[in-house]
Structure formats: structure tokens, C-alpha cells
């Protein structure tokens, strides 16, 4: 570990709290909130991909479940959105446990295509069951109600500001849970089975069970991220579960450094900001985005944070 858990959390907390001092307009709160939501999903992937060494190309599927739980449950079941978030977590966890059991036996690209298939199935259901989901045009999401509650208590915040803080706090909790996990029996076992499944099993690690736990945990992270996105956007379409979104969060994780939570957050920061910055390139945007991804991976092949850390270490 680079630094202890509390140092990492403290740096993160200070950054989240201090950055708004530099914000010139409400738009930056929106970007901040998006970064936090992405970082949350990516943190889940760090546990699955970075520690347990299992690939997923369909994790946006769980984000989709979380998002649509927040859209559907309040409308059809009359549940409060907060309860809907929890419902989304439960459904995602249950589904992850159900499909994880058979597909986690697969390795490498075969696991990749299986998870890809899962993501596509979720997208197809969301797209085709238009009576429920509004189809490809999407559907509205009920308001969380917390902001209104605050207003009644005399605290007035704009939507952007509210979601900045809400997502920031959820990310801090998510990072705290993940960092706890890293240095626990479970986290160590996950990293161990990544190193050698055979050796891990000979010291008593139940490899399939732990892989499944990592899969379920990362699914829940993605689900919460999806819920937060849906609630702050107030509107949701099946894109949230789509293949491109899955690839996006994997890319964030790898770009930042898939082994560490802070690296993953860094990856989310960069890939969320980049498209906003690249708008100055207008039609060259895609070109530059592709080139940046290639260059980072060539010059910092282990991801931004680990590669930079290794360089600093080499030059004392």
C-alpha cells in the first residue's frame, strides 16, 4: 500500500470539500457529481478486476438495474426513491450471485464475452419492454425528495450543489468500504487468487466463492452508481446499461491504475473531464480522445497512479 487507509480517505475528503471553492459556476458541481458517480462504479471494478483479476465487459448492466430500480419502483410500487436504491442493490446482488456462479468458471476473454452478453441482455430488456421502461426513449425518474426536505428545514441548495455533496459522500463511504476490504481476509484472499488460484486454494481459500463475492460487491457498487445517476438526471434511458458505458468504466479503471482505489478515482476524474475539455477540438474530439488513451497506456502501461508512483520510487 502506498499510504495508509486514513491518509487516502483524508486526501479524498479534503479534495471533495475544498474543490467547490474553485468552482466558477454551477456546471462544475455537475461535473464533480458525475466524477463521483463514475468513480463509485470504477471502485467496484477495482475490487473485481484489480484485486480478483476477473474481467467484466457488462458491468453497466448493473448500473442499468440500479437506475431503473429508481425509475420503476417509485412509479409502479410506490416506493420511496431511497428504498428504490436499496431495492436496486438487492436485485443487482441477487442477479450477480445467480449469473456469477456459472460464468465465473470462465477465464479471460471467455468471461469477457459472458459478461458482455449479460450487459446486452439487460439493455435489450430495458429497450424492448417499453410498456414498463419507456423503451429506447427512456423514462422520467421521481425526485429523491431530500433536497425538498432540506428546504423545509431552511437549507436551500440548488440541484447541482446537492448532488455534488450527495455523490461525494457516497463515494467517500464506498472508498472507505473498499479500503477496509483491501486489507482484510477477504481482500487479501481476492488478491491471492488473482496471483495463483491453485496456491490460494491450498491455503484454504474457497476460490469460486470469493470470486462470486467480488462479483456481487462490484455489482452493488455499479448499481448504486446507476441509481445516483438516474436520480440526479431525473430521466433515464437504456444507454446507461449499454456496452459503451461498460467499456467506459473499465477504461477508467485501467487508465487510472486498476489495482488501487485512488488510481481508479483518478481514472474517473480524467475520463469524465476529458470529453468536456475536448469540446474545444470540436470535430477532432474523438481523434484526440483515442490518441490520449493510446499514449497513456504506452507511456504509463500500469495505469496513471501505479506508473507514476513507480517512477517516483525509482528516482529518490
Amino acid at each position, binding site marked *: 500500500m502506498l499510504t495508509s487507509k486514513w491518509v487516502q480517505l483524508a486526501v479524498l475528503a479534503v479534495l471533495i470539500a475544498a474543490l467547490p471553492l*474553485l468552482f*466558477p*459556476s*454551477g*456546471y*462544475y458541481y*455537475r*461535473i464533480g457529481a*458525475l466524477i463521483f458517480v463514475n468513480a463509485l462504479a470504477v471502485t467496484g471494478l477495482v475490487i473485481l478486476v484489480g484485486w480478483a483479476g476477473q474481467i467484466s465487459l457488462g458491468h453497466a448492466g448493473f448500473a442499468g438495474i440500479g437506475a431503473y430500480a429508481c425509475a420503476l419502483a417509485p412509479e409502479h410500487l410506490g416506493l420511496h426513491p431511497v428504498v428504490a436504491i436499496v431495492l436496486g442493490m438487492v436485485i443487482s446482488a441477487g442477479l450477480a450471485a445467480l449469473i456469477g456462479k456459472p460464468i465465473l468458471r470462465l477465464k479471460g476473454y471467455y468471461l469477457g464475452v459472458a459478461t458482455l452478453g449479460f450487459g446486452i441482455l439487460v439493455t435489450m430488456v430495458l*429497450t*424492448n419492454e*417499453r410498456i414498463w421502461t419507456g*423503451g*429506447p*426513449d*427512456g423514462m*422520467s425518474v421521481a425526485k429523491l425528495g431530500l433536497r425538498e426536505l432540506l428546504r423545509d428545514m431552511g437549507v436551500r441548495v440548488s*440541484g*447541482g450543489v446537492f448532488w455534488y455533496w450527495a455523490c461525494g459522500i457516497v463515494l467517500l463511504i464506498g472508498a472507505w468500504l473498499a479500503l477496509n476490504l483491501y486489507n482484510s481476509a477477504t481482500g487479501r484472499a481476492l488478491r491471492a487468487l488473482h496471483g495463483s488460484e491453485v496456491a490460494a486454494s491450498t491455503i484454504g481459500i474457497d476460490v469460486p466463492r470469493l470470486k462470486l463475492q467480488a462479483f456481487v460487491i462490484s455489482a452493488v457498487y455499479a448499481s448504486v452508481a446507476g441509481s445516483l*445517476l438516474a436520480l440526479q*438526471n*431525473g*430521466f*433515464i*434511458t437504456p*444507454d*446507461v446499461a449499454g456496452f459503451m458505458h461498460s467499456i467506459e468504466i473499465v477504461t477508467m479503471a485501467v487508465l487510472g491504475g486498476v489495482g488501487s482505489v485512488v488510481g481508479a478515482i483518478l481514472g474517473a*476524474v*480524467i475520463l469524465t*473531464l*476529458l*470529453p*468536456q*475539455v475536448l*469540446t*474545444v477540438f*470540436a*470535430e477532432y*474530439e*474523438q481523434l484526440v480522445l483515442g490518441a490520449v488513451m493510446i499514449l497513456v497506456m504506452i507511456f504509463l502501461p500500469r495505469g496513471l497512479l501505479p506508473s507514476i508512483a513507480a517512477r517516483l520510487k525509482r528516482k529518490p
Partner: protein
Amino acid sequence: MKTTMTLTGLTLALLASTAHAELRLGASLSATGPAAFLGDPEAKTLEMLVEELNANGGINGEDVVLTLYDDGGDPNKARTFATRLIEDDGVVAIIGGSTTGTTMAIADLADGEGIPFISLAGAVSIIDPVREFVFKTPHTDRMACEKIFTDMQAQGTTVIGMISGTDGFGASMQAQCKDVAGDYDITIAADETYGPGDADMTPQLTNIANTDGIQAVLNPGFGQGPAVVTRNYAQLGIDLPLYQSHGVASNGFIELAGADAAEGVRLPGTALLIADILPDDDPQKEVATTYKAAFEEQAGQPVSTFGGYAHDAFALMVDAMTRAGSDDPQDIRDALEATSGLIGTTGTYTFSETDHLGLDLSAFRMLEIVDGGWSAID
């Protein structure tokens, strides 16, 4: 370090955009991505028209500054760009939302922040229920269905088959058509779909052709799907009238489907497609031919209905801003709602407190492809 650099970059961009006092207009369009079909001509149209307007002295002497973002068809991005337009770029009005999904993501925000917003997407739900600040230019999907069914009814058709794209456009129109079919005594006996990237629809068309009693086939969709459907239709030798939607109303469609396969296909279109053959006394003749000529000259590609939506949105906005005589969003909105008899490429717009679309079926024209070109049949 990277973060601070990018933040500085954003701040600089912000400073640059607030340095002048002009009329700032924002747009978020799907210039790339799966809906680039819609967004690309829309973006090109807006850029062309703004340039043209400023060259002619702008609005009440003020230049219009267009800030245009490409949301790639992703509603989440559209919402972010809308936030950026309102909060950071300080625009007084927004055009955009090429798709219903991106429109809905923007509409909520624009309405909440009190920024007039004209959408270029089809769904009824955008303007029904009416939201104070949200308007739109294209005909609704439901109106397209009604136009087609009216023509079918005139032909004595009562039983049809449908094959729809599962993209937003196709799925939305599929649902609307099923909804209103009963009003025209039309039964949908076969209801098939295809994915946006599919290359062969013969299985679906075979099933439709093998369904008893079908008298015509309707294909709501846009992009490559309808071209493939039309070609497969000819390949299978299905001898029933084929109706396409306004989603394919461009010359590109005839080229992609092949003139032979497309022969006889009917669809509801706008004056734009038949600008050249409109009678001289047609009220839309002038606006349609002018835009068509300018666009094809500038963009080097055939004009499409979608570019026309952007043209009309811009015309509405300019008209409202001129009448409002201020850059206050509320004034612009009020002027927009007071629009009356504005002639666009899509139709003649008259907004009211209860109608933020302002078009009726009369602007829709039933077109038929004859000898590789368009001809009006009513």
C-alpha cells in the same frame, strides 16, 4: 496536476465566452453516435444559419454566438452539456436534443432554469403535457402514423403488417401507430422488429408476407434499417404497398435502397423533399428552396428533413428574439409562445399556451418514390 490543468482550461474557456455582450444561443446535438443521422445535418444547418445571420447584421444589430456541443446521442452527456450551456456559457436559449432521450434529459433542466428550449425530436411526450419553456419543431410520431393511416384508408387497406426498428425513433413510432390504428379501422396483423445494425430482415418480412390477409406493410425506422428492409422486400418479391416513415425522408434513402427496390414506396414527408416540384404558389416554396440550395451548397450532401427541423427551430428562435427585443430568457419564451404563422420547411407554426408544437397534419405531404425521385400524391 492534470486536474488543475484541465480546470484552468475550462476557466479560460469560460472567460473567453463571457467577454462579449452578444446573444448567446446554445445547442446540444447528436452530431456523432447512433443518432448522427439526425444530429449531423442539424449541426451543419445551425452553423450555416448563424454565420448567414451574422453576415446580414444579426438580430437587432447584435451578433448571435452559437455554442454547440456534440452529445453523441447520450442523454447523460446531453444533460451535462445543457448544464454547461446554462450555468457556464450563459446562453439565453437552447436548441437541440436530436433524440427524444436527449431532449427529455435537457427539457427538465431548461424548464426548471427558465431557459427557452426548442427540441428537434419526435415524441408527443415532449410537448404533452405542455411545459412552459419547452417547444418542438418536428411533427410528432403520432401525426406521421395518422398521415400514413389516412392514406391507407383511402386505398381501402384494413389489415397491415409492421416492421419497426428498435431504436428510439422506430420504437416510439411503432407504439404510437399501434395506438392510433384503431381510429382508422386498421388492424396490425403482424408486428416485427429489427435491431439498428441489422443487415438482413428477410426472416421478419417472410413472416409478414406469410400472414393471412395483409394488404400493406409499414416500416417505422431511420438509418440503414429501412434501406435494408426495402431491398429485402424487393428480393422476396412481396407484391404489397410498402410505407416508410418520415425517418427516411431524404434522397440518400433512394440511393441506399436502390431506385428499383424503392420504386412505389410511400411516406409522409415535408415540403423540403419536393421543394423543386412544389407549385409556385405554395407558401413553403420559397423557404424550402432557399434552405435546400444553401445547405447542399455548404454541406455537400443532400438535404434531409432533420436539417429542416433545425432550420425551423432557428427561424423560430430568431423571430422570437427579434420580437422580444431583449436577451432575457423569459421575454424570449413569451415571444416564442406568441409565434403566429411562421413558415418553415416543416410547416407553418402557430404556438399557443396549450400548443407548443404548432403544426397540424396539413404540412405533412404524402410522397411516393417514382422513377428514383419524389412525387407528391396529395
